[in-house]
């Protein structure tokens, strides 16, 4: 293996063991002290894309924790899991964030949820838990009950970055629920006039504890149902990513027909998501006709979904072992007709809107993300493709019916909001092409065969190209018909970390469209934890606080 060999030759003494999990997926066991330098080399010199990072509690059975950093090389289609053990009583590890800035959030999350502190982390503030959550209670440890309620800790306040002394800046709060982005996230801009000088970010308002519930209360069969509800827009993507990881762990291949139907569902969802975004983006720059027209076409896509699944959204189609419903031939004909209608109306609309002068002016040269920065922050999906990084897991990590289909992945090089818009706009046309091909050449056969045996203790990663980028689900299988560890990494989690970079130097007028341009899906990025009415999340920022700021 090329990449493994390179790392081996660079660090001959630091690698404990390399095992092949499955084809093109390697597990490299190293010492925790070597994390920063090996990751620095793999990410910055070898160009590995940061996929996800997670910690798992093995205290009860093996007396240690493990930490996994997962890097992917899209061109080669390779995944490498870097794993180190952390002994009980020595619950820390050297932080890789100073070298690999995109590890920032992941390490903070591991610190909060498992109590493993990243030493040398430049920004060790809270990420997902509420400010009132006690410091010494770690909800993802196995000895923490899913329905436990932590003692209430009064009067905590998130430490926002203070402006440098002696400089005059305005502090402009953007959120926690700003109605331009319709998502619970709090940006805090330091502005000079209307120009944004610095951005601070507080996330975590939507942390629901799904992973803990999955690990304690759900079975393999019921998790896709929950996974679909991680996000309202890319539900099937999460169900597919989980199912893919599980089927890989069980060495199981779904029936051909099921694979093709899954592909159709994923693409219908992509069209829906992109049309939704194009509408919202139009509204953000004050082009309300665009909002109405794109959503008119989007409604047709929802009819299409209803025709095939019975649901306008949250299709509930993808389950381990196949799909829940078959596509009958008469429905196939109707669906093809609807798709061609969508195609026709969408092309007409795109021609009319993308040539609109005022709209173009608002999108061009705004929120630029240079290719180097995009690489450094390992951004995903359309954001990466708009900055000239050609990554698409449909093509690079082929799954389901994608290897048999003919499609392109649009790439732009400017890296501004206009480029992101064009990438998404062209993506829709490709999705239409994929659906047409897939429906026309749907193979015969069953749509579901049950998975019989899932071996315990298997690490497995599912990668799915969602509308916003690569969705990474990491699972470790467990003994009693449920996962031991399930880690969801939605693409927004990666993209959001790069937004302060995109915002810097632009004006307040462009802030909402820049934040909007990554198509943020906050509930996706923050799945997980314990729903607790007592912890008083709303106290993070009461209306009183907002008035003071």
């Amino acid at each position, binding site marked *: 293996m090329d990449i493994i060999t390179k790392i081996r030759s660079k660090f001959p003494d630091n690698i404990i063991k390399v095992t092949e999990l499955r084809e093109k997926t390697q597990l490299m066991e190293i010492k925790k002290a070597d994390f920063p330098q090996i990751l620095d080399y793999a990410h910055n010199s070898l160009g590995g894309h940061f996929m996800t990072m997670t910690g798992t509690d093995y205290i009860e059975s093996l007396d240690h924790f493990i930490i996994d950093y997962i890097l992917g090389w899209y061109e080669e289609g390779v995944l490498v899991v870097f794993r180190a053990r952390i002994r009980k009583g020595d619950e820390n590890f050297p932080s890789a964030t100073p070298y690999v800035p995109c590890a920032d959030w992941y390490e903070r999350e591991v610190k909060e949820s498992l109590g493993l502190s990243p030493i040398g982390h430049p920004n060790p503030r809270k990420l997902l838990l509420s400010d009132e959550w006690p410091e010494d209670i770690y909800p993802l440890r196995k000895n923490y009950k899913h329905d436990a309620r932590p003692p209430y800790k009064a009067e905590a306040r998130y430490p926002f970055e203070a402006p440098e002394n002696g400089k005059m800046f305005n502090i*402009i709060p953007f959120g926690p629920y700003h109605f331009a982005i319709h998502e619970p996230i709090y940006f805090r801009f330091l502005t000079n006039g209307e120009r944004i000088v610095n951005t601070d970010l507080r996330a975590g308002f939507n942390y629901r504890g799904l992973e803990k519930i999955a690990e304690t209360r759900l079975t393999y069969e019921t998790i896709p149902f929950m996974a679909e509800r991680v996000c309202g827009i890319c539900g099937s993507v999460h169900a597919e990513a989980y199912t893919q990881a599980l089927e890989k762990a069980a060495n199981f291949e779904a029936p051909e027909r099921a694979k093709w139907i899954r592909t159709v569902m994923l693409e219908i969802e992509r069209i829906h998501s992109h049309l939704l975004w194009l509408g919202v983006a139009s*509204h*953000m720059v*004050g082009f309300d006709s665009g909002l109405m027209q794109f959503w008119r076409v989007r409604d047709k896509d929802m009819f299409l979904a209803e025709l095939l699944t019975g649901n306008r959204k949250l299709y509930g189609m993808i389950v381990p072992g196949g799909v829940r419903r078959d596509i009958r031939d008469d429905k196939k004909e109707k669906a093809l007709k609807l798709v061609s209608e969508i195609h026709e109306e969408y092309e007409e609309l795109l021609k009319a809107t993308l040539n609109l002068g005022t709209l173009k002016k*608002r999108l061009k040269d705004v929120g630029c993300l240079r290719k180097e920065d995009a690489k450094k922050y390992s951004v995903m999906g359309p954001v990466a493709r708009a900055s000239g990084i050609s990554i698409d897991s449909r093509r690079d990590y082929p799954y389901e019916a994608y290897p048999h289909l003919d499609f392109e992945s649009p790439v732009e090089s400017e890296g501004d909001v206009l480029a992101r818009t064009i990438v998404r706009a062209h993506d829709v046309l490709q999705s239409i092409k994929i659906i047409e091909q897939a429906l026309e050449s749907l193979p015969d056969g069953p749509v579901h065969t049950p998975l019989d045996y899932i071996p315990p203790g298997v690490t497995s990663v599912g990668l799915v190209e969602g509308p916003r980028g690569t969705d990474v689900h990491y699972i470790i299988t467990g003994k009693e018909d449920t996962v031991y560890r399930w880690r969801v990494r939605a693409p927004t989690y990666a993209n959001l970390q790069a937004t302060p970079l995109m915002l810097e130097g632009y004006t307040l007028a462009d802030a909402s469209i820049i934040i909007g341009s990554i198509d943020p899906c906050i509930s996706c990025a923050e799945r997980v934890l314990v729903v607790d009415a007592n912890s008083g999340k709303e106290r993070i920022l009461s209306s009183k606080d907002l008035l003071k700021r």
Partner: protein
Amino acid sequence: MNFPVLAINILLAILMAPIFDGLRRKITARLQNRIGPPITQTWYDILKLLRKEIILPENGGFLVLVFPVLTLILSLTMFASISTITVQSPMERGGIIFIELAVLSAFVLAIAGSTSRNPYGMVGGSREVILATLVEPSIIVSLTALILLKGSTTFDDISRSYSAGIPLLIAVVAYLLSLLAESGKIPFDLAEAESELSGGPLIEFSGPPLAFLKLGQSVRNLALYSIPKFFMIAFIPLGLTEQHHSITVVILYFASLFLCTIVISLAESLNARYRLSEASKFYVMVLVLSSIALILSVLTKGTS
């Protein structure tokens, strides 16, 4: 002061202003393939807001109550200077009063936004001031061209003479373009910019104060929509005499209101919101246009 005419004007303003705002919303909706709200919707909004409680922001105090009332009074006073469905106007030298009030009321909202010390309100207020300083000159200059060509600042006289010409044509175009920003709708709703500034200067207003502000703004817009009538009269030889009151004046007045509503709806549904820098470029062009109208009218006046 001609009090019967004034009473007609004020009544008309208060009743019709929200209706024409509703009409604008309806036309915009139809242009966007929507059914849209009924044209009485703005009235429903105002009546609903009036029934709500008054909440004073922490830093704004009683000023939150002062500005909406001030806006409404200033807007209604604009109606005291112009002739609407009558030939007679309520007062002499109305042209000057109208220009002054148009400029003054534009700044009132900007100041209202800044009093609450809400950061969005302040940014919105500063945008409003910048926009007003860019747009008001065009309004002043194009109206001055009209006054100059008619040789009188009283709207009665302006209504009576017929004097079509190229300078007046340029002036009316400049006026309609300035109206886009004056009405505070997309593409020039920079100050309120819902998705950027969450309402800007309006952010701290709610309930009855907001109702008064909305009513005041729509009355102000209606007053501005009334002006193209005088341009139209200039182009149509009606031969209106001293005591003459014809149905043509009523038709022309409403034609003027509909024209402005349609122009604003079209601009609203065919554009994205301008940035401040682009808006200023646009209005520098409009100012140049209106200045040309003024210079040409000075020249024609001088030679005739």
